[in-house]
C-alpha cells in the first residue's frame, strides 16, 4: 500500500463517519426518513476491501452504512437524495438508502431480504466467466446473514463452477439483538470454507492493512480464474442496529470496550506514526469532509421531491 492509497482510504473513512453522523442528526430531527442501518465502526473493513477492486469490478454491499458507496465513489449527494426521496438519487425514490445503485461503478444494488445477495453475486460471477472477462465480484454480508441457506447454495455453486466471487463477512458480533455465538455454530465464519473447499481467512476487520491484504489476495485468486474465497473481518457495530434502536441488549461496558478499538482513530494514529498523515492534514481532511457534506445537504435540500406518480414507472423494461 502506497501513501496515496493509504490517504485515500483514510479520507473515505473520515467522510463516511462524518456523513453518518450528519444523517443520524437529520433522521433524529425528522428532516429525512429512511430505513438506515449505520455502519459506524465498520468503515475500515468496508473502505479497505473496496479499495482492492478495479473500476470495472462488481460489488454487492450489505445494509450497514454509507461507507461502501463513499468508497466506491458514488456521489454523496445522490445518497442523500435517495435517503430523502428526492430527485437526483440513484433509484428514483423506489428503493431509498436500502437500494443505492450505480451500474457505471459496478455497484449492483442490494437485496432487502438478507442472503438474497449471494445468488446475485454468483450470477454476476457466472456472467464474468461466460464472457471471458477478468472481473471479480465482491459480496459483503453480515455474520447473521451467514446462516441463510442461500449462503450455502451460492458458496457451493461458485466453488464447483470456479466463479470469481469474493465473499466477505463483516462479523460485528451481533445480528440486531442476537450475539453471533448464540446464532452461529462456528466461532469463525470463514471456517465454513471447509464445507466448500475454498480458500479464505479470518482477520482483524478494523485493521486496514490486514483487510487490504486479505481481500487483495482473494481478489487476485478470483481474477486468475481460481474461484471464490470466503473471508471474515472481525469488527463491531458501535451504534445501534438502526437509528433509533434502544440498544438494550448489550452492556455499555461491551460497547465502550469496542469504542476503544474504533478503527478511525486507530488508523489515524498509525498513519501519523508512519508520517503519512500530519496534524494539519488531518484537520484539513476533516474540514473537507464536512464541507463536502454541507454542500451535498444543500444540494439535496434544493432538489424537488420525487413526484408520486413516478411510482408507476421503472417496473418493466
Amino acid at each position, binding site marked *: 500500500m502506497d501513501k496515496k492509497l493509504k490517504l485515500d482510504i483514510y479520507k473515505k473513512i473520515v467522510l463516511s463517519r462524518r456523513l453518518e453522523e450528519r444523517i443520524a442528526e437529520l433522521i433524529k430531527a425528522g428532516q429525512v426518513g429512511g*430505513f438506515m442501518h449505520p455502519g459506524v465502526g465498520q468503515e475500515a473493513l468496508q473502505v479497505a476491501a473496496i479499495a482492492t477492486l478495479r473500476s470495472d469490478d462488481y460489488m454487492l454491499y450489505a445494509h450497514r452504512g454509507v461507507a461502501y458507496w463513499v468508497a466506491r465513489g458514488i456521489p454523496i449527494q445522490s445518497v442523500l437524495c435517495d435517503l430523502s*426521496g428526492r430527485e437526483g438519487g440513484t433509484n428514483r*425514490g423506489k428503493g*431509498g438508502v436500502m437500494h443505492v445503485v450505480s451500474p457505471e461503478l459496478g455497484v449492483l444494488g442490494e437485496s432487502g431480504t438478507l442472503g438474497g445477495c449471494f445468488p446475485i453475486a454468483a450470477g454476476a460471477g457466472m456472467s464474468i466467466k461466460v464472457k471471458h472477462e477478468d472481473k471479480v465480484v465482491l459480496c459483503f454480508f453480515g455474520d447473521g446473514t451467514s446462516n441463510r441457506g442461500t449462503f450455502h447454495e451460492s458458496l457451493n455453486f461458485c466453488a464447483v463452477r470456479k466463479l470469481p466471487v469474493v465473499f466477505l463477512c463483516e462479523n460485528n458480533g451481533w445480528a440486531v439483538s442476537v450475539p453471533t455465538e448464540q446464532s*452461529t455454530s462456528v466461532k469463525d465464519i470463514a471456517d465454513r470454507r471447509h464445507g466448500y473447499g475454498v480458500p479464505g481467512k479470518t482477520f482483524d476487520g478494523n485493521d486496514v492493512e490486514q483487510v487490504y491484504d486479505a481481500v487483495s489476495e482473494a481478489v487476485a485468486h478470483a481474477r486468475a480464474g481460481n474461484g471464490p474465497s470466503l473471508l471474515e473481518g472481525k469488527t463491531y457495530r458501535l451504534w445501534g442496529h438502526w437509528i433509533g434502536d434502544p440498544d438494550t441488549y448489550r452492556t455499555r461496558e461491551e460497547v465502550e470496550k469496542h469504542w476503544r478499538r474504533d478503527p478511525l482513530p486507530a488508523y489515524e494514529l498509525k498513519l501519523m506514526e508512519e508520517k503519512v498523515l500530519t496534524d494539519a492534514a488531518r484537520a484539513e481532511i476533516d474540514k473537507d469532509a464536512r464541507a463536502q457534506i454541507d454542500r451535498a445537504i444543500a444540494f439535496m435540500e434544493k432538489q424537488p*421531491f420525487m413526484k408520486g406518480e413516478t411510482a408507476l414507472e421503472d417496473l418493466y423494461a
Partner: protein
Amino acid sequence: MRTITYAQGIKEALEEEMRRDPTVVLYGEDVAHFGGIFRITSGLQEEFGEERVFDTPISENAFVGAAVGAAITGLRPVVELQFADFLFTTGDEIILKAGMWRYVHGGAYKVPMVVRCPSGAAGVGPEHGQCPEAFFMHSPGLRIVSPATPADAKGLLKSAIRDDNPVLYFEHKLLYATKGEIPDDPDYLVPLGKAAIRQEGDALTLVAISAMVPKAMKVAERLAKEGHNIEVIDPRSLNPFDRPAIIESVKKTGKIVVAEESYKTLGVGAEIGAMLMEEALEYLDRPLRRVAMPDVPIPTAAALEQFVLPNEEKIYQACRELLN
C-alpha cells in the same frame, strides 16, 4: 370492557395461551431477549424460559419448516417473522410443507402452528411493506387471518393458536398502536372464518381488510352524513373465508367496493368479484370497484408510497362513483 392496543392484544393472546398450554412455544429473530423488533414479545422469555421462548438464527427456511416438524410431533409453535414479506423466502416451507404435510400423508398428522407476519406499507419499501395475504389464499391447506381491531387481534390469535391447522396471522404494522375495547373474559376467542359486519347499511357493501377497516369506517361516517347508509364488512379471516356474509350483503345493497392493501390483480377483491359473479350476478346493479395497490412494488419514498397506497379518499371516491 377494557381498552387496549392491537399490539397488547397480540401479546395478551400469546401470554394467555402459553400459560394455558405448555406445548405452545414462541420463537423468531430477536423475540426473546429484545422482545421483538416491534416489541410485542417483551418479557415472555422471562416468564416462560429459554426453551419455550427463544431467538433463532437468520434462517427462515429452517425455523418456519421446524414449526411443521414441531407441530406434527406435539408442539404448537408460534413463529414470528420480522416482516410478512419474508414469507417468500420460505415458500416451500409454508406452501408445500405447512399447507400440505397433513394432506399428502393422508391426514396422519395435524399441523397446529401459527406464523405471525407483520404486514403493511410503512415507509419501508417493497421488501418490508407488503400485504401478501392473497398469495397464500390461493394455496390449499393454510388458514389466513388479518385482524383489524385490538379485540380481533387477541381473539383471533388465541383461536389461531388453538386451531389444529397452520395459520398465517397477518398483523398490520400501522395498527399496532391503535386502541379498542375488549371484553374482560380471559377466554375471549374470535372464531376463524366469521366476518364482522362493522356497520350495517343497505346503500352499498364495502369490504375492507386489515388496515383498510378504520379507513372504511371513516368513509362510512362521511357517507352517512351525505345520506348514504353503507355496510362495512371486515372478513377478518381469509381462509376460511366467510363468503355468505358478503353475498348476503350484496343481495341487499347491489353494490360492492373492496378495499385492500394487496396488489390489485388477483388480490382478495378478485376472488370476491368472481364469487359474486357466480353467485349473485342478478343482484349486482353497479360494477365492482377494487381499491388496492396498483400492480407495482411498494416504493420507499413517502410521496410515491402515498401515491400507490389505498387510502380513505380513494375508498370514498370509489363508493361515491357507485352511489351516483
